[in-house]
């Protein structure tokens, strides 16, 4: 049976057989779930369809969330894309990611990837890549398997939950998954895929999870936009031949260690960081009334 417990093992499989990473993620899943390749691909296609719908809805969204804290920014970012410093590709990805997160915040339909809080990052960069490089639908769906394989390893060897590992575990993991998927989509080698993951995660290590008023909105929604652009840069660096000095699995190990060292107040409890600022306290009071 095909199995992997680290990114290095996944890369080794791909290099040995001279096939892309997604082939082994699919092969493993076929075995563990006892489902056919077609059935798995079909389910992933359905997920991609939901992702695309959430992007379309997101960049047009004018609705505010129940709390009133988010809504309408994806539209603003998208409108600005051609006159921006960062360039239209980056701004589009940011708009898509913020848009999906806004859809999440208004109780719209999304695909957790790996979580609801970080759901904008992977689809945003793949959608941007699809329109730029004109990648076929089929390749995007395959790249989603690559992203999943990376996330599976992170989940096993570190965490993908903000409550356990801080936001590095959610938006950091999503950025790593997104970067790896992008590298594969551009025809990078499996080894470059690993570099992309390492570069993306390394730069988001230590990220706190401190959502204002306990809601998946501030800083989460805008952070999805930043992390999407971040993942694109990491993929471009890896494709340019930049290597992470610390190998990807050691980066994931470091993420795990840092997550454990993070105080409870920065792990989704809303008892630290941004969540205890004067403004956050006023927002909490407005939403929940005075705490006794």
């Amino acid at each position, binding site marked *: 049976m095909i199995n992997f417990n680290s990114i290095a093992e996944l890369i080794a499989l791909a290099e040995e057989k001279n096939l892309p990473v997604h082939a082994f*993620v699919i092969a493993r*899943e076929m075995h563990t779930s006892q489902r056919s390749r077609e059935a798995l691909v079909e389910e*992933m296609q*359905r997920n991609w369809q939901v992702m695309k719908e959430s992007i379309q809805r997101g960049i047009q969204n004018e609705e505010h969330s129940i709390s009133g804290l988010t809504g309408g920014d994806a539209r603003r970012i998208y409108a600005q894309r051609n006159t921006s410093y960062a360039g239209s590709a980056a701004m589009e990805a940011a708009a898509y990611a913020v848009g999906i997160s806004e859809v999440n915040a208004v109780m719209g339909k999304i695909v957790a990837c790996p979580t*609801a809080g970080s759901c904008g990052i992977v689809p945003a960069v793949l959608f941007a890549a699809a329109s730029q490089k004109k990648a076929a639908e089929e390749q995007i769906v395959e790249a989603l398997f690559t992203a*999943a394989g990376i996330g599976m390893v992170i989940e096993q060897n570190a965490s993908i939950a903000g409550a356990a590992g801080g936001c590095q575990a959610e938006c950091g993991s999503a950025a790593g998954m997104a970067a790896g998927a992008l590298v594969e989509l551009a025809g990078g080698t499996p080894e470059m895929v690993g570099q992309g993951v390492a570069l993306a995660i390394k730069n988001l290590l230590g990220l706190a999870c401190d959502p204002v008023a306990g*809601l998946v909105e501030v800083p989460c929604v805008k952070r999805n936009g930043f992390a999407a652009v971040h993942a694109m840069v990491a993929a471009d660096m890896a494709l340019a031949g930049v290597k992470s000095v610390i190998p990807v699995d050691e980066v994931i190990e470091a993420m795990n260690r840092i997550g454990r060292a993070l105080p409870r107040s920065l792990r989704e409890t809303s008892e630290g960081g941004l969540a205890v600022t004067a403004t956050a306290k006023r927002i909490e009071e407005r*939403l929940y009334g005075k705490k006794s």
Partner: protein
Amino acid sequence: MRGVFDIVGPVMIGPSSSHTAGAVRLGLMAGKILGEKAVKAEINLHGSFAQTYRGHGTDKAIIAGVLGFLPDDERIRDALILAKREGLDYSFQPVNLDGAHPNTAVIYLIGVTGRVARIRGASIGGGNILISNINGYEVELTGQYPALITIHRDKPGVITQVTNILSRYEMNIAFMHVSRQNRGETAMMIIELDDVLPEDVVEECRQVYEVENAFHIPAI
């Protein structure tokens, strides 16, 4: 290791897998245990659920579940209005349950024919749930597997009779949990299975002399 669709997935209604998607599943489970259309729902929320339920739509999510909606149903955001239309009366109260998981709900339902169900459960992360109490019995139920629940007199041999029926139908038991209030009185048994449970099996279990009632909770 988790599967591909645990990482890229599930498709869900936001904003939070634990406060929204998991909450839908708690409501669903309560509705399935009631086993008929609910006309009244009294819900107590503890911890983070009590604090953030409006912002996360946890109230809408639980009611959506009671109405039978799945976690990816776009009607969840309108569930409170739909409940009114369906004749489901609901109320939410924050409570403090000592030592309970921060995302715990106690859901009390009354059905059209007067049946009642009280379940206590927590949303334990990633949309997963754990039901810890059903109608006063301590249980552990995740909703990941189809389950057979029996209420029976706490006598020797009952469990064997029920498991014999299952083995005759070649049903494999994944997990099993027995709990009782007092020795010799009524007990509850929960058997989680690998496969979907045919209604015949449930009916046969009801025929066991000591079994007062048996019912089937599908995986949710």
